């Protein structure tokens, strides 16, 4: 039965009324109208639904909402700080690292989580980590370049 579940998303507390096994993705999109997180496959294969759960990139289509209650969640809507884009968002913008951009939220969240754990990644590590994110338009080289650029910006700013 649906019972209230408390979530902490982008620093705010929310309560959702849904069954505990409801995917976090559905709770975000359909209960809370946080639609920046995208549905792409429902089997954790494309990365479009990636959010940060306790700072770690996770596929929100694979996580029951009840399991997401314990940790802070960051979605694409929560990356901007004080009216400034996150360096990863800015790097995607600067590199024009999208075509249809449907994968972009997931690419950015994956990259933010990855750079947090690996502030000085080798190119091959970026590629390896993003292997689970599909860009069907094939914008991969620009995305990899944006992530490398963001890593540099964050190191310079001491945000790594």
């Amino acid at each position, binding site marked *: 039965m649906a019972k209230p579940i408390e979530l902490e998303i982008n620093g705010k507390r929310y309560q959702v009324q849904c*069954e505990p096994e409801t995917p976090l993705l559905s709770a975000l999109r*359909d209960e809370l109208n946080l*639609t920046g997180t995208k549905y792409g496959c429902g089997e954790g294969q494309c990365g479009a639904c990636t959010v940060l759960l306790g700072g770690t990139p996770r596929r929100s289509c694979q996580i029951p909402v009840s399991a997401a209650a314990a940790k802070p969640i960051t979605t694409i809507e929560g990356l901007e700080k004080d009216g400034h884009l996150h360096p990863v968002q800015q790097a995607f913008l600067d590199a*024009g690292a*999208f*075509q249809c*951009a449907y994968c*972009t939220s997931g690419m950015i969240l994956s990259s933010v989580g990855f750079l947090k754990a690996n502030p000085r990644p080798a190119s091959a590590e970026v590629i390896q980590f993003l292997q689970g994110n599909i860009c*069907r338009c094939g914008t991969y080289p*620009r995305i990899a370049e944006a992530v490398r650029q963001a890593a540099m910006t964050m190191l310079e700013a001491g945000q790594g």
Partner: protein
Amino acid sequence: MMNETLVTFVPEPERYEFSAEPMHHFELARRDFFKFLGAGIAVFAVAKNSVAKQETAPTHGFHQEELPEAITAWLHIGEDGTVTAFTGKVEIGQNIRTSLAQTVADELRVPFDTVRMVTADTALTPFDFGTVGSRSMPTMSPQLRRAAAAARDLLVGAAAKEWNVAAEGLTAADGKITDPATGRALRYAELARGKTLAQNLPSEDPVTPPNEWTIAGKAIPKKDACSFVTGEHKYTPDLRRPGMLYGKVLRPPSFGATLTSYDGKSTQAMSEVVIVRDGDFIGAAASNEREASKALEAIHTEWKEVPQTSSKELFSYLKQNAKAGGDDRSRRIKGSVENGLASATHHLDATYTVAFIAHAPLEPRAAVAEWSEGKLTVWTGSQRPFAVRDELADVFHLAAQNVRVIVPDTGSAYGGKHTGDAALEAARLARAAGRPVQVVWTRDEEFTWAYFRPAGVMEIKSGIAGDGTLTAWEFHNYNSGMSAIETPYVVPNQHIEFHTTQCPLRSGSYRGLAATANFFARECHMDELARAAELDPLEFRLKNLSDPRLRAVLEAAAKSFGWPRKKTQTGQGFGIAGGFEKGGYVATCAEVAVDRNSGGVRVVRITTAFECGAIVNPDGLRNQVIGANIQGLGGALFEAIEFENGRITNPRFSRYRVPRFRDVPDVEAVLLDRKDLPSAGAGETPIMGVAPAIGNAIFDAAGVRLRGLPLVPGGLPVTRS
């Protein structure tokens, strides 16, 4: 000049560009137009040549004296100086919103940021056949440019009147009209103020030639790019309407199955769920998708299934089910192939195949439908909003002006979103629910119930003379289509024919249509002939080629790639391929690394040269070309839809492999800017050389000739010594 050249692009008959009868309604009368947009200056562009007319339709609804037929675009300059351009084209990631805005800004002489594009809304934009066939640049761009030129003339005229001087000496720049004699200036906003001036476009208005462009031709970033990195942009699945329900559709167990029994008793207690059964359509709408799915699971249905062929027998099936009696539109005959073969010193017969593949756009098919007082509004990701409107009007017995289809910028399509399937489903459910309903297909539905790039069989018989000159070319394509079926090489004796067959799966447009299949067969065959003639594959092509634009891209790709190359390691191989289609010329060189022990094939490097006339946005173009090359890797190497008994057996990303980060080679795009030629589209042609270049490189590396796409879904067969 630009417009005259335009007429030479005659789209060839192509069975897989879905064609619907254009409908002819436009409900926004001229008075309403200004009411909607505010006062100002409006210009209506009229299709002037046969090609444009083919893609547009007479517009009724306006009084005939107010507007002529075949309006294709319009633009409006508001009292605040805002420029709004209207086109039925759809943004699907190809960057058309930006490219067309550049065109308008360039011709109107206003800053890029002051131009707003209203796209793909059947109530606001003129009829458009669809965002298909790489037509947006060659047809829509000149029309908007002419509308902007006419608007500029109106503004010059208004300023001349204001100052009581001759219009000839006045100049337009940076959103103002200036009188060089006195230095005085009037901003467009000032000139538009208090006016409701509308003009039909003079058909011969001259436009700015590419070598004088200032905003077009520049690498301007994607319009509204910020809304995509913040998650703010609303794709169709992101729309939420007041009281909206979520819909699900019960799918038959297999293609062609018919409903024989229906028992929905157990859903009667589900008071919150709306169930619709209408013929074989069964759907549910509820406050969330899970509730809707549960309701459908509670319905007991039985279906009569029909036995069907499987992907294992696909190619023999296509040959066996070929329909007899093609007409002249499907056949090109020149000289005598028989004589050509008789005079040849070397003959080659070979058969090539391509599998069904899926578009797999990351945004699945989706729609939101809302009924209000007998009128229907649908938001949906479609390349053909007007065709979807007509489909809806037809199915629900509505006048077309009572249906409005709006296409938000969409999460890609690649030719896969020509139909209105999700729109119809959402509209049917919404009508029953009396509330807005959203339907978003699951990935499984997208892989199964969308349509596919058609599979095909290509048979080639050819002959060359002792010096490597082509003497005969017989080419048969079964099922995949006619795009780029003709050879660009000089061959005196040709028989080229397309054969329709019974097709086991629902098929439709795909980026490049059949050109990918026809390029693959032709360019691999050319490679085989080059080897038979003991000529370098590039040299052999150039020897048999007169088209200067194709020669230019082949030479540009070869130069940048460093063709011919010496192999420096075992398993290394190089391949080349080229051709033209839809006004664009492409040549691709590929390097592969083959491991004969493991069967592993890795594409190391790709260089693609592309020429599509005058480049409107080099950054957007580069993104398209590189993206197309990477997407093309999938169909070249491993993508294939598998099916059995009316079921797709690999309908998910875990079973249907698409290119991912690790598959990506070093990709280089060499862009040839021909400012003397009109701009052609670029969304499709750059994909076409990838598969044959890789196939030819694999032969070069391993001596194994692969004649089917995908080339190496399970790696190369391992040689046992």
